[in-house]
């Protein structure tokens, strides 16, 4: 069985909002509405840290990171349970989706969702340009909408738009039921958390924190399952020393510097010149 999930490497996420904007474009989301938001973890406002500035050579306490947040496509989705008309449902492939024809706009699902992932079309959605963008029609006034994992793309073998268009390679989409998928491997290899796990929603969006992963560079817009070769990069055609040796991991910690000790020096990759 296919069970789609998303891994977001917060060590790689640079808070650029490309995922948020490309989501709006691909899914024809109206002005003022977001299916996918990039939250700043730190200060109260976007792009501000928590802590105090290190004056006079002090070490300071500033910290900031980003948490892209959309529908978590929960295994045990509270929105599905509360919908009085079964407009919200879980697909066979694990994607939580809304039948907009059935939705009566009661917004129980919005109250039930602990991730604030859903938006309601109070008005007829407006877009710029007016006749819309992307590859799906706009939803009507009076319905709730949210991230679909770009199911219209997934059905065609394409990764979600936010995944394809992440300039930091921080988003990896794939089949959680397939042990060989990158999402499964990364969840096993790296320290991951899920949002509000204590709510018992069993979300299928995993966040890497701690050690940075190589991400999954997108050299195609196809889903991993459609590709023969899912190595990070194909071999450079010429003039590059870069060869894949699996990487040695290591760096990328946010922890402040605690000593002067010289850390492990990673092996050099590539030619000797």
């Amino acid at each position, binding site marked *: 069985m296919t069970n789609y999930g998303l891994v977001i490497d917060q060590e790689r996420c640079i808070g650029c909002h490309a995922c948020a904007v490309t989501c709006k474009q691909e899914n024809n989301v109206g002005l003022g509405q977001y299916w996918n938001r990039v939250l700043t973890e730190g*200060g109260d406002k976007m792009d501000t840290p928590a802590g105090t500035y290190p004056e006079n050579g002090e070490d300071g306490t500033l910290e900031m990171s980003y948490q892209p947040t959309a529908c978590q496509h929960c295994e045990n989705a509270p929105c599905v349970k509360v919908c009085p008309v079964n407009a919200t449902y879980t697909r066979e492939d694990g994607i939580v989706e809304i039948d907009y024809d059935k939705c009566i706009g009661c917004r129980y699902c919005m109250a039930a969702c602990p991730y604030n992932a859903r938006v309601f079309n109070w008005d007829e959605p407006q877009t710029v340009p007016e006749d819309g963008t992307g590859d799906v029609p706009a939803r009507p006034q009076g319905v709730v909408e949210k991230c679909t994992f770009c199911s219209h793309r997934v059905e*065609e073998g394409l990764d979600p738009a936010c995944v394809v268009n992440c*300039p930091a390679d921080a988003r990896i989409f794939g089949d959680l039921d397939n042990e060989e998928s990158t999402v499964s491997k990364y969840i096993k290899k790296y320290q991951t958390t899920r949002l509000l796990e204590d709510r018992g929603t069993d979300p299928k969006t995993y966040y890497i924190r701690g050690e940075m992963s190589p991400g999954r560079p997108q050299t195609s817009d196809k889903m991993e399952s459609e590709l023969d070769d899912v190595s990070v990069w194909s071999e450079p055609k010429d003039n590059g020393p870069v060869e894949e040796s699996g990487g040695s991991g290591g760096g990328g910690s946010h922890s402040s510097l605690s000593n002067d000790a010289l850390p492990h020096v990673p092996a050099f990759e590539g030619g000797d010149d």
Partner: protein
Amino acid sequence: MSDDRRGSKGGDGDGVFRRDVLKASGAAAVALGLGGGGYASSLAETATEPASRQNPGIESYVGQDEVIRTACAPNCRGKCPLEAHVRDGRVRKIEPQIPADERYKRACTLGLSHTQRIYNATRLKYPMKRVGWEPGSPNPEGRGEDAEFERVTWDEALDYIAGEMERVRDDYGPESVYFETGSGNNGVSGTIQSRLSSLFGGTQKSWSIDINVGLGFRRLAGAGFFNVPTNEVVDWRNANTVIVWGSDIFASNLQQDASKLLDAVENGAKLVCVDPVFTNTAAKADLWLPIKPGKDTLLTLSMIKTVLDDGTYDTEFLRKRTLGPALVRDDTGELLDASDVFDDVTEDLPVAVDESTGEPVALEPETYGEYALFGEYTVAGVACHTALSLLEEHVADYDADAVAAEVGINADNIRTAVRWLATRGPGGIASGYGVDRYKYGHTFGQAYAILLGLTGDFGRHGSIQGSHPLGGSYDNGGYDAPEDGPGTTSLAQTDILTAMESGDPYQLKVMYSQESNFIANQMPDRQRWLEASKSLDLIAVADMHHTPSVQHADIILPASHWFEREDVVDTWGGHPHIMYRQPAHDPLWESKSDHWMLVRLAERLGFGDYFNRDKSATLRELLAHDDEVDYETLKEQGTVKVSTPVVKFTGPFNTPSGRLELYDEDAPTEGGITLELPKHIESRTADDWDTAEDYPLMFIQKHSKWRIHSQYEYQNWLREINNEPQLDINPKDAAARGIEDGDYVRVHNDRGEMVVKAKVNDGMQPGLVNTDQGWWGSDYVRGHHNDLTHTDVCEVTGNFAFYDTRVEVEPAPSDVDTSKYTSNQPTGSGATSAGAGGD
């Protein structure tokens, strides 16, 4: 229409635009009745499945789009190859295009949003003439925010321009016509304009922006201008230490570089960030050095001392590739010349002492010897010290402990950063443009070139000297400067200003500006530029959008969007490709490509024989001289990878000695101070600057992820997130002035003011405030960030010092009208309708 510009966004502006885009384009937009039929039919197909497994599906257009290859190139150096997905005659979305080297498949938030840029409310629709402007009677006082425009035909517009160019040529000489090309495109329009300027004998600018650090570096290493050439970014993963200095790569240079820098970190590199602001990049660094503004050279000198004290310098590199062992005469401060030492040497070569023999030897480039790196020697009767000894003496007082308080950084952290660089193998300093924007930033370029010379971080995999991989360029066979024209006169931007202002060095009378928003928005001390430009009899501006500079024009020329024109795009400063732009559809309204305009202007000026109305033919001609790229292949593939060295600074340095000139005997002076070795010189960042009491805060204008210079200001998707200009201010500075987060504040100095919303931000250094650059005048509640900046430049580079600016901040006056941002506009107040479209 000026009311429209100032008015709040809301439905009216958009509504006008939307109706207009449909009406005027005459395209298939009417066919987009996106009703619910799709839902119903897909429901019917799945109605028999169990309720919990029902999959009514989302109606999808996937696979119905025609995919057009094009490219972004707004001077961010990302130069991302893009795909435009076209359906029913309209671009529906943008995705990255996979170029010949797939590692450069990238697009950022801005590039991905072009759908809104093409169909933007600020797009110019028709040629226009300012009401009140007539040939020979320019009425310059009528320019500006209140100017009104009337529609003219293309023939009329071009006739006006050609007529004025000919008139002022007769009266003032051809150089009085200024052909301005900004940085807003990177297709061939700049080349075409240069060709016309050269044939006409006009003036073009040379840059006075972002050349400070690069030119300082260049004195020693023979390369550098806009920043410094560095290894191609795909090689950065071989770096073990990356010091990002004065650059927020993850916000302002993320397009191609962010992923590569992350890959380096993932591969084990230590990331150090030197920045007074806790930026996106600082947040990801292993070590952040929160430097005080303007202290970069001082910090570098202390790092140099640490390396010398530790003895961790790269002896082999210093001996083989630098002037470190070169002897410097005690009497003159010049390099000892080999021709004064050896009878058989006539070349101008430096001299070193061979430690194994104690004998002097001539220093050839790229030649290793057991040269003494330190010491004093008397050779041919001349007392000398080695360059490295002079350097050692020069930095003697700059121990990390001694400078820590002044630079604001813990001495142990200074040492740790440079020890990583010196001892962890390949790495380097990825300088950005932050330091350039301080008056004497060039001394930092000089200083860190020396530091990288000590650590040997040149010419190997993993070396980083800056943020400018060379990118891809092509040989156009001198198309931009034909031999039989009088040629273009080049003036630095600082001279463009005085030429307009006082006729020094000569009077400018006509400006033809394309892809540039300089004159009314992007230049320091903006009011001075606006005042100076009153001496111009004609300002013609070609642009896609109704920018502040368009509002300041006499003749407005509507330019087509990049995706509406065929073009060839180089990747200067970025990745190694030449890219092709296939038009997604015809230009909207009456907009035309710059090529179209310039060719017809050239015809009117009598240079028609030098141009071809068929742009494809022009592109073919431009590429005909290049060995690697030809038009047909490029058109077919979308991109062609061109050969540029992955590793830079291999072989002899492009210097007189062929070596990295750690000691610069031909050094320039700055305020009487000679710069054989780098010196810490400050301007307004000095605590005792004479206006420090009145204006105690330093003011920078960071380059954000929401703009490339002033482009993308009008994008709704961006303005929804980043709504209005703000002032980043530390809570201590805010509290001391009675300012709370979200208050409107007045930022002012002796040149001007701006009123913006305060954003209390713990990531700002106390004493330093920031407003992201790129906002337009109409975005401010009052004033403009460039009403605060100045045109005081250093002697050596003449580079504008935008960040070397002092201000004071106070609560905004109670009568200030903030309604454009405080009234209820749930969809964001950005991207007001421009209203110059003739409707």
